[in-house]
């Protein structure tokens, strides 16, 4: 596995640490004054180790963009909606049901699920199917740790993730665009891959609600809509689970949805992307730049057919 490839980012392009920290200070100040509806709950600082699996040499997308430019349709379809409305979601207490083809099905309180798990910072590129991208310092842990603990049976071939659907706290659930609750899925080997994580934070603090608090999936070589947010259920299945966007529009959103510049979305090109903060587009990389780590998962598969 090749880690830490040399990058084409000049050091001068990288946001200096004190600059983004300063921005966070400003935001925290705004929150303390009650000005930032986007930051209602006090974000707790997390303890974590740096991970060798982080992507290096790329400028981090500023926290403000990461937390105000979101697709989370349960809070509205505009990118600014989640930051405005997600504060209503209660994330404590939080229960995650783990069931399906496992030896140890259980309802975990989030604290119990996280017990004994060491958090890591994972800096990953995020590529949205809409043609924009970010670089986000997630804090989380390998999904495989949870999977191993649940002891999947030999029948477990896929993992399904379900997002919370609390109508009173998520007004977007009254919109008819997706078949709620939001569901996503991975093949077992994808779920077990070391790059696949469950994130509980970003930029060193607990996840803001609009980013999928308290627990979200991150699969950096896939389009962002695969990253199920605010997970309440992890179910192991023998057959490929139905997923939200694939159900809504199967021609446009496949089950795999690996980032692939050679396979266009029917309505737009995927060859290039705009990194948030930049003006012109840059080329999109195969598997979002993680080809060395993940392409073996798809050996012999026709990626045009299994898009």
């Amino acid at each position, binding site marked *: 596995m090749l880690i830490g490839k040399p990058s084409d980012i000049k050091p001068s392009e990288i946001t200096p640490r004190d600059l983004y920290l300063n921005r966070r200070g400003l935001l925290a100040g705004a929150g303390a004054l009650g000005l930032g509806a986007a930051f209602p709950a006090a974000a707790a600082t997390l303890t974590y180790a740096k991970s060798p699996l982080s992507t290096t040499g790329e400028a981090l997308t500023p926290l*403000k*963009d990461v937390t*105000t*430019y979101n697709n989370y*349709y349960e809070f509205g*379809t505009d*990118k*600014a909606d989640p930051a405005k409305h997600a504060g209503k979601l209660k994330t404590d207490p939080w229960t995650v049901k783990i069931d399906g083809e496992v030896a140890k099905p259980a309802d975990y309180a989030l604290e119990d699920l996280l017990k004994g798990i060491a958090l890591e910072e994972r800096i990953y590129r995020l590529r949205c199917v*809409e043609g*924009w991208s970010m670089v986000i310092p997630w804090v989380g842990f390998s999904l495989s740790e949870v999977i191993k603990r649940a002891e999947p049976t030999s029948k477990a071939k896929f993992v399904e993730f379900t997002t919370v659907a609390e109508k009173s706290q998520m007004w977007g659930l009254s*919109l008819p*665009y*997706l078949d709620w609750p939001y569901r996503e899925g991975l093949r077992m080997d994808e779920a077990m891959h070391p790059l696949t994580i469950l994130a509980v934070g970003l930029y060193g603090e607990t996840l803001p609600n609009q980013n999928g608090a308290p627990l979200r999936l991150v699969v950096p070589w896939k389009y962002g809509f695969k990253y199920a947010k605010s997970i309440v259920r992890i179910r192991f299945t023998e057959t490929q689970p139905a997923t939200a966007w694939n159900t*809504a529009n199967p021609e446009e959103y496949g089950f795999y949805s690996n980032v692939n510049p050679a396979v*266009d979305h029917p*309505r*737009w*090109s995927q*060859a*290039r992307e*705009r990194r*948030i*903060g930049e*003006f*012109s*587009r840059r080329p999109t990389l195969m598997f979002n730049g993680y080809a060395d780590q993940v392409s073996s998962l798809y050996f012999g598969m026709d990626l045009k057919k299994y898009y």
Partner: protein
Amino acid sequence: MPVSAIGALSRRRLVWLAVFLACLVPLASLVWRFLADDLGSDPVETLIRSTGDWGIRFIVGGLMITPLRQMGWNAPARFRRMIGLYAFFYVCLHLTTYLVVDQGLDLPSIVGDILKRPYITVGMLAFVLLVPLAATSTAAMVRRLGARTWMMLHRLVYPIGVLAVIHYYLLVKADVTWPVIYGAILAFGLGWRLKEKLRRRPRTLRTGAVRP
């Protein structure tokens, strides 16, 4: 401005000037937000969407002027040309932002988009049809073409409106609220014209019948 100068400007001209300047407010707002770094996380997307929004508003709004006049509200009628030219103006900004800023004038990529992406094909077609209308907007051009030909040519704005709404409808991912709203207004405007045409036809036939 001295009082005498205001007196020299007729009320009619003042209203014209006010409407003219009001139509520039969306552009001014975008320039202001650009300078204030307030165009959001993806400024290019905001510029493209916003100029496109105003383009379709002027096109669909312009197509409502005639129905409104026939319903008895005459005031907007004299701004038809201005509204039409502003539609063209915002559509030009929309297209320029896409070509220059978003695509960086990458010709193969742009041609690929036009050929392969239905919403871009449709949008580009709407733009191409809009060009002759903008080019023949002057009184001199009306005289040169003759009122009849000019009117025929400018009926192109009906398909342009339809193409613009389709363009918008095709590009949204899931939330079709706004394309449907514009589509409904457009359908009303075009439906009204059809209704008026049908209402007038029997009368023409009648007068034709009494001719010797």
